[in-house]
Protein backbone atom coordinates (compact mmCIF):
# COMPACT_ATOMS: atom_id res chain seq x y z
CA UNK A 1 0.00 0.00 0.00
CA UNK A 2 1.35 3.41 -0.95
CA UNK A 3 2.39 5.78 1.80
CA UNK A 4 -0.05 8.59 2.47
CA UNK A 5 0.37 12.16 1.37
CA UNK A 6 -0.58 14.82 3.89
CA UNK A 7 -1.66 18.27 2.76
CA UNK A 8 -2.85 20.84 5.25
CA UNK A 9 -3.41 18.09 7.82
CA UNK A 10 -5.53 16.02 5.42
CA UNK A 11 -4.32 12.50 4.72
CA UNK A 12 -4.68 11.47 1.09
CA UNK A 13 -4.40 7.77 0.35
CA UNK A 14 -3.64 8.37 -3.31
CA UNK A 15 -0.95 10.43 -5.03
CA UNK A 16 -3.09 10.59 -8.16
CA UNK A 17 -5.08 13.83 -8.53
CA UNK A 18 -7.64 13.58 -11.32
CA UNK A 19 -9.37 16.19 -13.44
CA UNK A 20 -12.96 15.88 -14.59
CA UNK A 21 -13.15 17.69 -17.94
CA UNK A 22 -13.59 16.26 -21.41
CA UNK A 23 -14.91 12.78 -20.69
CA UNK A 24 -17.13 11.12 -23.27
CA UNK A 25 -19.99 10.70 -20.77
CA UNK A 26 -20.84 11.03 -17.10
CA UNK A 27 -20.60 7.23 -16.81
CA UNK A 28 -17.05 7.27 -18.16
CA UNK A 29 -16.13 9.95 -15.63
CA UNK A 30 -17.73 8.02 -12.76
CA UNK A 31 -15.94 4.80 -13.65
CA UNK A 32 -12.62 6.57 -14.27
CA UNK A 33 -12.74 8.17 -10.83
CA UNK A 34 -13.37 4.74 -9.32
CA UNK A 35 -10.59 3.08 -11.33
CA UNK A 36 -8.09 5.83 -10.54
CA UNK A 37 -8.39 5.58 -6.78
CA UNK A 38 -7.89 9.35 -6.76
CA UNK A 39 -8.82 11.16 -3.57
CA UNK A 40 -8.51 14.69 -4.93
CA UNK A 41 -10.74 15.57 -7.87
CA UNK A 42 -10.54 18.91 -9.67
CA UNK A 43 -13.57 20.94 -10.77
CA UNK A 44 -14.21 24.44 -12.06
CA UNK A 45 -16.66 27.33 -12.28
CA UNK A 46 -18.24 28.83 -15.35
CA UNK A 47 -20.22 31.94 -16.09
CA UNK A 48 -23.73 31.14 -17.09
CA UNK A 49 -26.88 33.06 -17.82
CA UNK A 50 -29.39 30.26 -17.93
CA UNK A 51 -30.29 27.59 -15.45
CA UNK A 52 -29.62 24.90 -18.05
CA UNK A 53 -28.09 21.69 -16.73
CA UNK A 54 -24.59 20.28 -17.17
CA UNK A 55 -25.63 16.92 -18.60
CA UNK A 56 -25.20 15.22 -15.27
CA UNK A 57 -21.45 15.58 -14.85
CA UNK A 58 -21.52 17.57 -11.61
CA UNK A 59 -23.98 15.20 -10.00
CA UNK A 60 -21.76 12.27 -10.93
CA UNK A 61 -18.74 14.01 -9.46
CA UNK A 62 -20.44 14.74 -6.16
CA UNK A 63 -21.69 11.15 -5.90
CA UNK A 64 -18.28 9.73 -6.74
CA UNK A 65 -16.54 11.97 -4.26
CA UNK A 66 -18.89 10.81 -1.53
CA UNK A 67 -18.67 7.14 -2.55
CA UNK A 68 -14.86 7.08 -2.61
CA UNK A 69 -14.05 9.37 0.27
CA UNK A 70 -12.46 11.91 -2.06
CA UNK A 71 -12.50 15.68 -1.89
CA UNK A 72 -12.96 18.41 -4.45
CA UNK A 73 -10.32 20.86 -5.57
CA UNK A 74 -11.88 23.77 -7.48
CA UNK A 75 -9.69 25.67 -9.92
CA UNK A 76 -9.58 29.27 -11.08
CA UNK A 77 -9.19 28.35 -14.73
CA UNK A 78 -9.69 31.20 -17.17
CA UNK A 79 -8.61 33.96 -14.80
CA UNK A 80 -6.13 36.43 -16.19
CA UNK A 81 -5.37 38.58 -13.22
CA UNK A 82 -4.82 38.18 -9.51
CA UNK A 83 -8.06 40.05 -8.82
CA UNK A 84 -10.10 37.74 -11.04
CA UNK A 85 -8.53 34.65 -9.48
CA UNK A 86 -9.16 35.87 -5.94
CA UNK A 87 -12.80 36.65 -6.69
CA UNK A 88 -13.34 33.30 -8.38
CA UNK A 89 -11.67 31.46 -5.51
CA UNK A 90 -14.09 33.05 -3.07
CA UNK A 91 -17.00 31.96 -5.24
CA UNK A 92 -15.57 28.45 -5.43
CA UNK A 93 -15.21 28.27 -1.67
CA UNK A 94 -18.87 29.13 -1.25
CA UNK A 95 -20.15 26.80 -3.99
CA UNK A 96 -17.98 23.79 -3.24
CA UNK A 97 -17.67 24.30 0.52
CA UNK A 98 -13.92 23.85 0.57
CA UNK A 99 -11.10 26.25 1.34
CA UNK A 100 -8.74 24.38 -0.95
CA UNK A 101 -8.13 25.99 -4.33
CA UNK A 102 -6.06 25.13 -7.38
CA UNK A 103 -4.87 28.61 -8.28
CA UNK A 104 -4.51 29.37 -11.98
CA UNK A 105 -3.76 32.77 -13.50
CA UNK A 106 -3.21 32.57 -17.24
CA UNK A 107 -0.36 34.62 -18.69
CA UNK A 108 -0.38 33.47 -22.31
CA UNK A 109 -3.31 32.30 -24.43
CA UNK A 110 -1.23 29.90 -26.52
CA UNK A 111 0.74 28.08 -23.86
CA UNK A 112 -1.75 28.76 -21.03
CA UNK A 113 1.26 29.17 -18.80
CA UNK A 114 0.74 31.13 -15.62
CA UNK A 115 1.54 34.81 -15.17
CA UNK A 116 4.06 34.43 -12.33
CA UNK A 117 3.61 37.95 -10.97
CA UNK A 118 -0.19 37.79 -10.77
CA UNK A 119 0.05 34.22 -9.48
CA UNK A 120 2.21 35.15 -6.50
CA UNK A 121 0.03 38.19 -5.74
CA UNK A 122 -3.15 36.10 -5.84
CA UNK A 123 -1.59 33.35 -3.75
CA UNK A 124 -0.56 35.77 -1.02
CA UNK A 125 -4.05 37.29 -0.86
CA UNK A 126 -5.80 33.94 -0.78
CA UNK A 127 -3.55 32.62 1.97
CA UNK A 128 -4.46 35.72 3.99
CA UNK A 129 -8.12 34.97 3.27
CA UNK A 130 -7.77 31.50 4.79
CA UNK A 131 -7.41 29.37 1.68
CA UNK A 132 -5.17 26.34 1.23
CA UNK A 133 -3.55 27.30 -2.05
CA UNK A 134 -2.24 24.79 -4.59
CA UNK A 135 -0.83 26.97 -7.38
CA UNK A 136 -0.37 25.75 -10.94
CA UNK A 137 3.03 27.19 -11.84
CA UNK A 138 5.92 26.80 -14.24
CA UNK A 139 9.17 25.12 -13.26
CA UNK A 140 10.89 28.41 -12.42
CA UNK A 141 12.69 28.01 -9.10
CA UNK A 142 12.50 31.64 -8.02
CA UNK A 143 8.76 31.86 -8.66
CA UNK A 144 8.28 28.64 -6.75
CA UNK A 145 10.21 30.04 -3.80
CA UNK A 146 8.05 33.14 -3.78
CA UNK A 147 4.90 31.00 -3.82
CA UNK A 148 6.16 29.07 -0.82
CA UNK A 149 7.07 32.32 0.94
CA UNK A 150 3.51 33.53 0.26
CA UNK A 151 2.24 30.51 2.20
CA UNK A 152 1.28 28.01 -0.49
CA UNK A 153 0.79 24.53 0.87
CA UNK A 154 1.89 22.78 -2.29
CA UNK A 155 3.55 23.68 -5.59
CA UNK A 156 2.23 22.27 -8.85
CA UNK A 157 4.74 22.90 -11.65
CA UNK A 158 3.90 21.92 -15.19
CA UNK A 159 5.39 19.01 -17.04
CA UNK A 160 4.29 20.52 -20.36
CA UNK A 161 1.50 22.83 -21.53
CA UNK A 162 -2.00 21.90 -20.38
CA UNK A 163 -3.56 19.17 -22.50
CA UNK A 164 -0.48 18.73 -24.69
CA UNK A 165 0.34 15.19 -23.57
CA UNK A 166 4.05 15.80 -24.07
CA UNK A 167 5.22 14.52 -20.71
CA UNK A 168 8.09 16.05 -18.77
CA UNK A 169 9.64 18.53 -21.22
CA UNK A 170 12.23 19.80 -18.78
CA UNK A 171 13.23 17.08 -16.34
CA UNK A 172 16.31 19.08 -15.39
CA UNK A 173 14.15 21.93 -14.09
CA UNK A 174 11.83 19.56 -12.26
CA UNK A 175 14.80 17.75 -10.73
CA UNK A 176 16.26 21.09 -9.68
CA UNK A 177 13.02 22.07 -7.96
CA UNK A 178 13.02 18.78 -6.08
CA UNK A 179 16.63 19.22 -4.98
CA UNK A 180 16.40 22.89 -4.07
CA UNK A 181 13.04 22.62 -2.31
CA UNK A 182 13.45 19.36 -0.43
CA UNK A 183 10.74 20.06 2.12
CA UNK A 184 8.08 21.29 -0.29
CA UNK A 185 5.18 19.16 -1.44
CA UNK A 186 5.55 19.04 -5.21
CA UNK A 187 2.94 17.84 -7.68
CA UNK A 188 3.51 17.67 -11.43
CA UNK A 189 0.42 19.21 -12.98
CA UNK A 190 -0.30 19.48 -16.73
CA UNK A 191 1.13 18.01 -19.86
CA UNK A 192 1.12 14.38 -18.78
CA UNK A 193 0.17 12.08 -21.66
CA UNK A 194 1.18 8.54 -20.80
CA UNK A 195 1.52 6.54 -17.58
CA UNK A 196 5.28 6.43 -18.16
CA UNK A 197 5.32 10.24 -17.80
CA UNK A 198 3.60 9.97 -14.44
CA UNK A 199 6.01 7.27 -13.30
CA UNK A 200 8.92 9.46 -14.37
CA UNK A 201 7.58 12.33 -12.26
CA UNK A 202 7.23 10.09 -9.23
CA UNK A 203 10.71 8.63 -9.77
CA UNK A 204 12.07 12.18 -9.62
CA UNK A 205 10.68 12.33 -6.10
CA UNK A 206 7.55 14.31 -6.78
CA UNK A 207 4.81 13.77 -4.27
CA UNK A 208 1.86 13.38 -6.64
CA UNK A 209 0.69 13.88 -10.20
CA UNK A 210 -2.37 15.79 -11.42
CA UNK A 211 -3.71 14.97 -14.86
CA UNK A 212 -6.96 15.15 -16.80
CA UNK A 213 -6.67 14.92 -20.60
CA UNK A 214 -4.46 11.83 -20.53
CA UNK A 215 -7.36 9.87 -19.04
CA UNK A 216 -10.36 11.71 -20.49
CA UNK A 217 -9.04 11.61 -24.06
CA UNK A 218 -7.76 8.04 -24.00
CA UNK A 219 -9.50 5.49 -26.17
CA UNK A 220 -10.59 3.74 -22.98
CA UNK A 221 -10.60 6.32 -20.17
CA UNK A 222 -11.44 3.81 -17.45
CA UNK A 223 -8.60 1.45 -18.38
CA UNK A 224 -6.25 4.42 -18.69
CA UNK A 225 -7.22 5.65 -15.24
CA UNK A 226 -6.28 2.23 -13.90
CA UNK A 227 -2.99 2.31 -15.82
CA UNK A 228 -2.11 5.69 -14.34
CA UNK A 229 -2.97 4.47 -10.86
CA UNK A 230 -0.50 1.63 -11.26
CA UNK A 231 2.20 3.81 -12.80
CA UNK A 232 2.00 6.40 -10.04
CA UNK A 233 2.21 3.68 -7.40
CA UNK A 234 5.13 2.09 -9.23
CA UNK A 235 6.95 5.39 -9.55
CA UNK A 236 6.50 6.12 -5.87
CA UNK A 237 7.79 2.66 -4.91
CA UNK A 238 10.75 3.12 -7.23
CA UNK A 239 11.61 6.46 -5.62
CA UNK A 240 11.43 4.94 -2.15
CA UNK A 241 13.48 1.94 -3.28
CA UNK A 242 16.21 4.16 -4.71
CA UNK A 243 16.70 4.11 -8.49
CA UNK A 244 20.22 3.12 -9.52
CA UNK A 245 22.40 6.01 -10.77
CA UNK A 246 22.86 6.53 -14.51
CA UNK A 247 26.29 5.95 -16.00
CA UNK A 248 27.76 6.88 -19.38
CA UNK A 249 29.65 3.60 -19.76
CA UNK A 250 28.77 -0.09 -19.54
CA UNK A 251 29.24 -2.03 -16.34
CA UNK A 252 28.89 -5.79 -16.86
CA UNK A 253 26.28 -7.34 -14.69
CA UNK A 254 27.47 -10.95 -15.14
CA UNK A 255 30.77 -11.44 -13.23
CA UNK A 256 32.68 -13.38 -15.96
CA UNK A 257 35.99 -11.92 -14.79
CA UNK A 258 37.47 -10.98 -18.18
CA UNK A 259 37.50 -13.09 -21.42
CA UNK A 260 35.22 -16.12 -21.27
CA UNK A 261 37.48 -18.45 -23.37
CA UNK A 262 40.93 -17.27 -22.33
CA UNK A 263 42.43 -18.58 -19.15
CA UNK A 264 44.03 -15.97 -16.98
CA UNK A 265 47.79 -16.29 -16.72
Amino acid at each position, binding site marked *: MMDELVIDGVRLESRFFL*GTAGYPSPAHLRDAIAASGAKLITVGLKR*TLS*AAGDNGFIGIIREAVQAHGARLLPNT*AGCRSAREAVQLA*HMARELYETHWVKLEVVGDEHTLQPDPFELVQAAAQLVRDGFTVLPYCTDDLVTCRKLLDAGCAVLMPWGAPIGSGQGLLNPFALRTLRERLPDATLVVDAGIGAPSHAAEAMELGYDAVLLNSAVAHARDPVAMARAFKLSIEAGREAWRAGVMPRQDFAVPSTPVGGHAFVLDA
Partner: protein
Amino acid sequence: MTGAEAITVIVDGRPRTLDRAHTLADLVSQLGHAQADVATSVNGSFVARASRGTHSLAPGDSVLIFKPIVGG
Protein backbone atom coordinates in the same frame (compact mmCIF):
# COMPACT_ATOMS: atom_id res chain seq x y z
CA MET B 1 -35.33 55.88 -7.41
CA THR B 2 -38.91 54.77 -6.69
CA GLY B 3 -39.98 51.15 -6.60
CA ALA B 4 -41.70 51.60 -9.98
CA GLU B 5 -38.64 52.79 -11.92
CA ALA B 6 -37.07 50.38 -14.35
CA ILE B 7 -33.32 49.97 -14.34
CA THR B 8 -30.94 48.29 -16.74
CA VAL B 9 -28.17 46.06 -15.46
CA ILE B 10 -25.67 43.97 -17.38
CA VAL B 11 -26.01 40.24 -16.76
CA ASP B 12 -23.20 38.10 -18.14
CA GLY B 13 -22.39 40.83 -20.63
CA ARG B 14 -25.95 41.37 -21.83
CA PRO B 15 -28.22 44.27 -20.86
CA ARG B 16 -31.30 43.32 -18.89
CA THR B 17 -34.07 45.73 -17.94
CA LEU B 18 -35.58 45.19 -14.53
CA ASP B 19 -39.05 46.65 -14.08
CA ARG B 20 -38.63 47.42 -10.39
CA ALA B 21 -36.07 47.53 -7.66
CA HIS B 22 -34.27 44.23 -7.48
CA THR B 23 -31.93 42.67 -5.04
CA LEU B 24 -29.28 40.32 -6.33
CA ALA B 25 -31.26 37.43 -4.81
CA ASP B 26 -34.33 38.54 -6.79
CA LEU B 27 -32.32 38.49 -10.01
CA VAL B 28 -30.86 35.06 -9.33
CA SER B 29 -34.35 33.66 -8.77
CA GLN B 30 -35.70 35.42 -11.85
CA LEU B 31 -33.00 33.76 -13.93
CA GLY B 32 -34.23 30.37 -12.75
CA HIS B 33 -31.39 29.48 -10.37
CA ALA B 34 -31.66 28.10 -6.88
CA GLN B 35 -29.61 30.37 -4.60
CA ALA B 36 -27.37 27.52 -3.44
CA ASP B 37 -26.60 26.41 -6.99
CA VAL B 38 -24.71 29.53 -8.11
CA ALA B 39 -22.12 32.07 -7.04
CA THR B 40 -22.38 35.74 -7.89
CA SER B 41 -20.30 38.82 -8.44
CA VAL B 42 -21.31 42.42 -8.98
CA ASN B 43 -18.93 44.82 -10.71
CA GLY B 44 -16.14 42.28 -10.39
CA SER B 45 -16.53 41.66 -6.68
CA PHE B 46 -17.82 38.47 -5.09
CA VAL B 47 -21.15 38.88 -3.30
CA ALA B 48 -21.77 36.13 -0.80
CA ARG B 49 -25.02 34.18 -0.89
CA ALA B 50 -25.96 35.49 2.54
CA SER B 51 -25.70 39.08 1.28
CA ARG B 52 -27.72 38.73 -1.92
CA GLY B 53 -31.04 39.40 -0.23
CA THR B 54 -29.92 42.84 0.92
CA HIS B 55 -27.74 43.72 -2.06
CA SER B 56 -29.79 46.20 -4.12
CA LEU B 57 -28.87 46.43 -7.79
CA ALA B 58 -28.10 49.86 -9.25
CA PRO B 59 -28.35 51.00 -12.89
CA GLY B 60 -25.40 49.77 -14.90
CA ASP B 61 -24.32 47.13 -12.40
CA SER B 62 -22.50 44.24 -14.07
CA VAL B 63 -23.62 40.91 -12.66
CA LEU B 64 -21.94 37.58 -13.29
CA ILE B 65 -23.47 34.25 -12.31
CA PHE B 66 -21.19 31.23 -11.91
CA LYS B 67 -22.08 27.55 -11.77
CA PRO B 68 -20.04 24.43 -10.92
CA ILE B 69 -18.56 22.70 -13.94
CA VAL B 70 -16.05 20.01 -14.70
CA GLY B 71 -12.43 21.12 -14.68
CA GLY B 72 -8.82 20.00 -14.85
